[in-house]
């Protein structure tokens, strides 16, 4: 299946080809490498739901033509 990943920081998109057994964290890894993201943490959302990193594409309910968003997860506060 093919999904579209949106970069929450720039609005840019990239299409990603996935198998049912790919994991959410593989999507995070692939997308953050594509956009040369820095060392920070990231999460992926589908609609109003944040997807669990350990889940597979099939388990997390990702379907063909879905749009997902890669969001930086802020670590600072001091």
């Amino acid at each position, binding site marked *: 299946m093919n999904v579209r990943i949106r970069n929450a920081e720039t609005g840019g998109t990239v299409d990603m080809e996935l198998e049912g057994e790919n994991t959410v964290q593989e999507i995070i890894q692939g997308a953050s490498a594509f956009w040369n993201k820095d060392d920070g943490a990231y999460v992926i959302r589908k609609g109003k739901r944040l997807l669990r990193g350990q889940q597979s594409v099939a388990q997390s309910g990702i379907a063909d033509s879905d749009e997902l968003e890669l969001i930086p997860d802020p670590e600072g*506060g001091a």
Partner: protein
Amino acid sequence: MTGTIRPGFIDEDRYDRSRRIAWLDVERVRRTKCLVVGVGALGNEVVKDLVLSGIQDITIVDMDQVVRSNLNRCVFFREGDAERSLAKVDVVAQRAMELAPDVRINSIEGKVEDIATEELVRFDVIFGCLDNIAARLHLNAQAGHVKVPYIDGGTDGFRGKVQVVLPPATPCLQCAMNQSHQRILERRFSCTGAEVVVHERKIAAEITTSSIIAAIQVREALKVISGRSEACIRHVEYYDGYQVRSECYELELDPDCPNHG
């Protein structure tokens, strides 16, 4: 009902304008005990908002001293505090008490790991105002263990987030972790063979985002305290001040998360 009033009486009550918010339980707010871990950018703002909201019993924890680079975002710190390398907790305690004379601030100069889990039972709400994932996960686990609501804030430049954890029902910080968080943890603690070296990443920070994220943390706490948990963020609010976006997203409880026994 009859009574005696005099002109201007409504302006003598410090909390008159707060009492006009129908759902806000001001008396309960005043009896609440809060723990704020970290009194840097978020912690300064959280303490300020708690004191002005009427919380009278606040414990603050931080191991650091004031430095000049804190002064772009910390309302309680002054140039002289940095010159004298004063402990952040001491400065925050002193200045916060100037805002409301009846507030009691107990300051602990130390790390989050220095607080015994059993000591957390006495708090009604715990605030995470930390600058790293390791400390957040530690506090999240402790709060979950004693089933005290935990409200975590995080920022990076003009971005921020707030997660509300109401143990044991809601997903916790650990539930939301993935390999990208794990990699940060691994980089933070590197082993030289003889010792563990802690690498601290310098993260962008400024006052508008710190102020907004801290305000959301306190806003959510006021709902919890007033018995309005159903109106709280489910479960994470992400804020982007540059793109002017703010959205709440739901998380799933991780069945393997050790914090939901």
